[in-house]
């Protein structure tokens, strides 16, 4: 599997080299399963740690906060609960900023350190890692697995395969359940599930997730990274020669050659440090050869670094034949510091802007929102004493956790106007918009214009600092 590869001996660009290139062009389209070897090492440990962030995905929804689910993305009732915070559809603009923030984080990280997300955090990587870990526990190491795959169907093979698939499906079921309970009460969901009492939508989501997880993590594996994931395709745009990524030091490693026993007559000195042991390929979860250079299939997980380091230790050579390094460093060009990297600054600037927007939004959520719609038919009514009365429909959104009462007052408008319909404080239920009607009656002699600006305020009677404002019009007949 190679994308067009940067060969060290570029200067030999004869026509015949094209055929040579073609001969090397092989595409991993999933004909053979990649059985990667698990080797301990720094990056392996790091990967275990980062992948364990997904435990939050599995167990986060069970967390309670003041008698309710701490984080509940309640799409059915159109509100998100995050601890004390309630986010209603009116605040959804913050979600777009959040998406921007996440995208920018991804871009910035990619520009500095390549596909860190792919290698250490991605759900595909993590679930495949879990699935292959299960596979290894049941079917043994990669060699044993290759043999088992090729072996005829015996009782033992069937037993192993059945157990493996059952555990995979169990993990998939748990994944599906864990996903769903972010969107509804976890304990109620389990209750409904155990009574086989889910709604059609709930069943569909669950089954889709079970099948998806089982198929993508159990069978598709690295094919997802290479042929399905858009990020793998666009990351090349974000990486440049200053980006650090797992790289093979070909100046040091080439010409590669197998290690021979002492005294076999082959002079060792002419060769580079790479002993062509293929350990880096063996451990690769996507089955690429890192020595071919940076490529589409590389998720920059660093497992090949672990493998190569352990081999270098054994043959008594310094570590780092494969290491996290930029292209500049490998080619001996001056290496820039991170702050000399203009692209990073652009990303950081957008990142800070969107973060600022979210913080502004969260701190200025406003517990009350007011919308006032003036009646259009009729625009005004003449009353028996000659005064003009306008009708307004108030919509008050209460985003606090409890029902409150509001009083109504005005600013502007016509001198001597009276508010009718809000003599008693109005009840505003929490978590939804409450509407009520207010009339404003003004003496005709004080009305100067057909349209006068009027500002309405609703004020929480228990906490006068909580208020919301809306500016609209008072309409009167032409005179």
């Amino acid at each position: 599997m190679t994308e067009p590869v940067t060969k060290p001996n570029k200067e030999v660009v004869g026509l015949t080299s094209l055929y040579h290139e073609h001969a090397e062009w092989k595409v991993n389209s999933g004909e053979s399963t990649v059985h990667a070897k698990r080797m301990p090492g720094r990056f392996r440990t790091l990967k275990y740690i980062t992948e364990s962030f997904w435990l939050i995905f599995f167990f986060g929804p069970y967390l309670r906060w003041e008698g309710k689910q701490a984080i509940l993305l309640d799409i059915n009732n159109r509100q998100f609960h995050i601890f004390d915070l309630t986010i209603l559809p009116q605040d959804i603009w913050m979600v777009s900023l959040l998406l921007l923030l996440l995208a920018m984080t991804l871009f910035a990280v990619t520009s500095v350190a390549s596909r860190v997300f792919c290698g250490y955090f991605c759900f595909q990587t993590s679930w495949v890692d879990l699935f292959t870990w299960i596979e290894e526990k049941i079917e043994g190491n990669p060699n044993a697995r290759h043999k088992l795959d090729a072996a005829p169907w015996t009782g033992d093979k069937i037993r192993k395969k059945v157990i493996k698939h059952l555990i995979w499906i169990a993990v998939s079921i748990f994944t599906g359940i864990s996903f769903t309970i972010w969107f509804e009460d976890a304990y109620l969901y389990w209750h409904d599930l155990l009574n086989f009492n889910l709604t059609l939508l709930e069943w569909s989501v669950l089954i889709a997730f079970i099948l998806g997880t089982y198929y993508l993590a159990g069978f598709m594996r690295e094919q997802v990274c290479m042929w399905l994931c858009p990020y793998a395709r666009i990351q090349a745009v974000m990486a440049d020669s200053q980006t650090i990524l797992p790289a093979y030091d070909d100046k040091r490693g080439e010409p590669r050659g197998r290690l021979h026993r002492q005294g076999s007559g082959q002079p060792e000195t002419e060769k580079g440090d790479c002993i062509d042991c293929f350990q880096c390929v063996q451990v690769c979860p996507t089955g690429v050869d890192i020595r071919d250079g940076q490529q589409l299939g590389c998720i920059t997980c660093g497992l090949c670094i672990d493998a190569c380091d352990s081999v270098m230790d054994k043959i008594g050579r310094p570590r780092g034949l494969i290491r996290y390094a930029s292209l500049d460093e490998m080619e001996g060009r001056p290496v820039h510091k991170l702050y000399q990297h203009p692209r990073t600054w652009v990303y950081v600037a957008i990142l800070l802007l969107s973060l600022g927007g979210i913080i502004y939004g969260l701190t200025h959520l406003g517990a009350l929102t007011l919308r006032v719609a003036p009646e259009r038919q009729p625009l005004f009514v003449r009353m028996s004493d000659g005064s003009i009365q306008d009708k307004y429909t108030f919509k008050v959104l209460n985003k606090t956790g409890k029902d409150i009462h509001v009083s109504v007052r005005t600013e502007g408008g016509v001198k001597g106007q009276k508010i009718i319909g809000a003599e008693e404080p109005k009840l505003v239920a929490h978590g939804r918009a409450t509407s009520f009607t207010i009339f404003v009656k003004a003496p005709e002699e004080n009305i100067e214009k057909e349209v006068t600006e009027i500002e309405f305020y609703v004020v929480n009677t228990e906490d006068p600092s909580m208020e919301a404002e809306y500016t609209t019009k008072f309409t009167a007949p032409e005179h």
Partner: protein
Amino acid sequence: MSNNQNSAGDDKTTGHVWDDDLQDFANQPPKWWMLGLTASALWVVIYWLMYPAVPISITGTHFKGIGLPGSGQWTAIKELAEDQKVLDNVRGKYEDKLKGLTPAAILADQELSEYVVRSARVLFSDNCAACHGQNGVGTVQKGKFSMRERGLMAPILNDDDWLYGGTIGTIQETITGGRQGMMVAHKDTLSAQQIDDVAHYVKAFVEEGKDKADNDPAVAAGMKVFMESDCTACHGTDAHGMQAMGSANLTDKIWRFDSSIEGIKHTITYGVNSGDPEARVAIMPNFGTSGKLSETQIKKLAVYVYKLGGGQPE
């Protein structure tokens, strides 16, 4: 021109060749695609069996489908009924409460009265808006014999002037039993001059106020007619009218009929519902005892009208 002699290599072709070199590979479509095609074809057959999909009538009947598991044969009317049930469930909790409440109690409940204002809008449009106008703004009645406006077809409902009272109870009463006021024609009892005088006097109430009109020498003749003829019997000496009999308040700024001098004279001359062919007609039909609307519907309408803007507390 072009020299692209691509050969199919070792791949099998169908053997057909067009334009010397154009060949057709004998490759199978992908397996998943073939499976999808087969599954779709099967689904068509299942769909035909489940739904009434064959519109061919044999011996007067047609294939009605074997139906969906659990819900029997599918029909459009059944689907409508089910949707209606969903709607009724939402409304039901309010409608049930309404049955046991008086309109005054409904008004006292903020949430319930908001529901009523929304749901009674359709009732109002169907039953009331023809005369009272959409949202109770009133409709202007055009003259039958002249092009002159003859005033409103029915009173404006969002002001605070009520012929029979604007409390929730009287509104409910008005809708239930209907109303039909009566003003006698004065063409035989008053002279044309007297009618002209009294019309100017009444008009002055609105322009100057009742107190000033009483002392205005220009309308003194009209005042004399008003006080000495039968006007005060219904409209009262203060001209404020009596809601018990539905006589209009003549001193406020709201006119039931045409407010021009000509219009006022017409009203006085021929009366209202007086039997005279030229008389003004003002009849509020009976919606309750006639059985046109249910009691709950009337309650809802009463609350709706009350909340239009002019409702008066008991």
